[in-house]
């Protein structure tokens, strides 16, 4: 009874410790703040954006940044600031959902491979090899083309092409943890495999998974932008990559149409990278007391 409380207390203090370490890292804090801002923008897009994202005003086409239109307008007279704001929703949605998908599948697959080893490990690793032998963009483009255009299919394409990375990381961590003594101890007292994975292996490989996931979201955003840049995606929604692609023809006369969506992509990924870096340092077991 008291054992459980002790374990829980230890867990909580670990969490607080990590949090404290994270907050001491100024860049990570900056990343967190940026991230929170971006998420808030996505949630409150309706309030923040001065215009609907598809409101066309033919009398104000191609305006540069000005008071009524902080980011200018595009070739249909749509306010770019509003479109970038709404684009936050789309990019975050694609990135998180596809990331969650690939993390889930990757974790399960990687854990199984790492834990059971042997033939199962070999087969799973060969599958990963096959998928990683095909360049990521080509893989994503092929999957997206096979499934057809649209946001959901783009999400699936990104998710599938990111699974091998996760699986590898999880497998490596599982292998390290598997050899630890407490796992051996658990096995010797007759713990079931599922229980071992859940209670002993999983919490200890959580750290690299979290780090990989955070950095993975950034990659997913860029991948999504690249896919919609190439035309696979939903052309009617204000996805940042699609906005950059549409603005290519106007690059010489109205560079603001390309600059702002691209900056949005960069800032989102930057915030995730800053946060992810800080998280990695904070979770670094070498610094654990």
């Amino acid at each position: 009874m008291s054992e459980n409380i002790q374990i829980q207390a230890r867990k909580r203090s670990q969490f607080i410790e990590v949090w404290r370490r994270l907050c001491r890292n100024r860049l990570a804090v900056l990343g967190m703040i940026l991230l929170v801002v971006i998420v808030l923008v996505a949630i409150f897009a309706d309030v923040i954006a001065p215009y609907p994202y598809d409101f066309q005003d033919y009398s104000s086409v191609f305006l540069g940044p000005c008071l009524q239109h902080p980011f200018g307008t595009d070739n249909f007279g749509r306010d770019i600031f509003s479109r970038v704001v709404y684009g936050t929703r789309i990019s975050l949605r694609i990135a998180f959902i596809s990331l969650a998908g690939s993390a889930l599948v990757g974790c399960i697959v990687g854990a199984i491979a790492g834990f059971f080893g042997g033939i199962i490990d070999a087969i799973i690793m060969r599958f990963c090899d096959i998928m990683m032998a095909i360049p990521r963009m080509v893989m994503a483009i092929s999957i997206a083309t096979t499934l057809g255009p649209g946001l959901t299919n783009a999400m699936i394409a990104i998710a599938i092409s990111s699974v091998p990375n996760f699986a590898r990381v999880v497998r490596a961590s599982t292998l390290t943890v598997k050899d630890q003594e407490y796992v051996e101890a658990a096995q010797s007292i007759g713990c079931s495999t599922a229980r071992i994975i859940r209670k002993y292996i999983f919490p200890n490989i959580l750290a690299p998974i979290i780090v990989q996931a955070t950095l993975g979201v950034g990659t997913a955003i860029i991948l999504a932008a690249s896919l919609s840049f190439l035309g696979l995606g939903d052309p009617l929604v204000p996805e940042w990559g699609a906005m950059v692609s549409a603005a290519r023809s106007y690059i010489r006369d109205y560079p603001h149409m390309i600059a702002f969506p691209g900056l949005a992509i960069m800032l989102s990924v930057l915030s995730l990278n800053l946060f992810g870096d800080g998280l990695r340092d904070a979770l670094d077991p070498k610094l654990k007391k």
Partner: protein
Amino acid sequence: MSKFIIKRILVMIPVLLGVTFVIFTMMYFTDGNPAQLILGDMATEEQIHELEEEMGLNDPFFTRYLNYLSDLLHGDLGTSYVTGQPVAKEIMDRLPVTVRISFCCMIFAVAVGIPAGILSAVKQYSILDNLSMVLALVGISLPNFWLALMLVLVFSVGLGLLPPSGLYGFKYYILPVVSISASAVATITRMTRSSMLEVIRADYIRTARAKGQSENVVIFRHALLNALIPIITVVGLQFATTLSGTVVNEQIFAIPGLGKLMVDAIKARNYPVVQGGVFVLAFIFSILNLVIDLIYAFVDPRIRSQYVRKKNKRQAETDNRKEVPA
């Protein structure tokens, strides 16, 4: 050592086979009729059906796959639906360009990234370190197609210094290489820095310094060599990312490379080219991974000694056996 290589090559074969199967399946289930695309809008139903029969598009899945495989094993990658030229020729025409650019990107990334990383690690917390870390962070956050467009905007349109397309001379390589390698440079810088930092804190470095070795020797001989191991892995991985990155940027810079060929082929449902191209790329990747692993094994004394130890062990075993009395 040679056993290692042979084993790895043997493993490559099922992987490559798997690659062909995956891509073939994906193309098979994609909408769109290549026969119709070839014949154009004005073709009649019979003409389309006739061409479909000729191209074998109506055969069942496994027949088509096995036919493809048997051709592949004879070195025939098929003929392009769009140009009628052998796929092998089309790929070989474009491959050197992409490989050349990727190599330039990697050389650039290593030439800039590793020194920057070393400097940052050595002069930790200085302005230089902070600046390079910031730039590196920005570098991995930039979408490379946007960077390409911005570079064209500034250097071609704005300043008129560099050409915006084509590959006819040294000048033409600059913008594509910089835009494609940006994230590789950034990643290598970061990796080098963190790897060096880890190594510098190690005990044997302190010992070397205590022995009175000059700082340069400490850095370059002891620290760098040991830090190289993870760096090499990262460099290898970055090559893969670079190859991926050329896919989009080849479009922007009108570079006649493999990436553009693949994207165009996927759009045109030009199955043979897609399948052939992916196969060639997967082959290159696998070889590359093998080379990286070999270098890794060579550089890392722990792994090297493992093999040496094994050889000695075997030797010892046979010696032992000889000694057992009859």
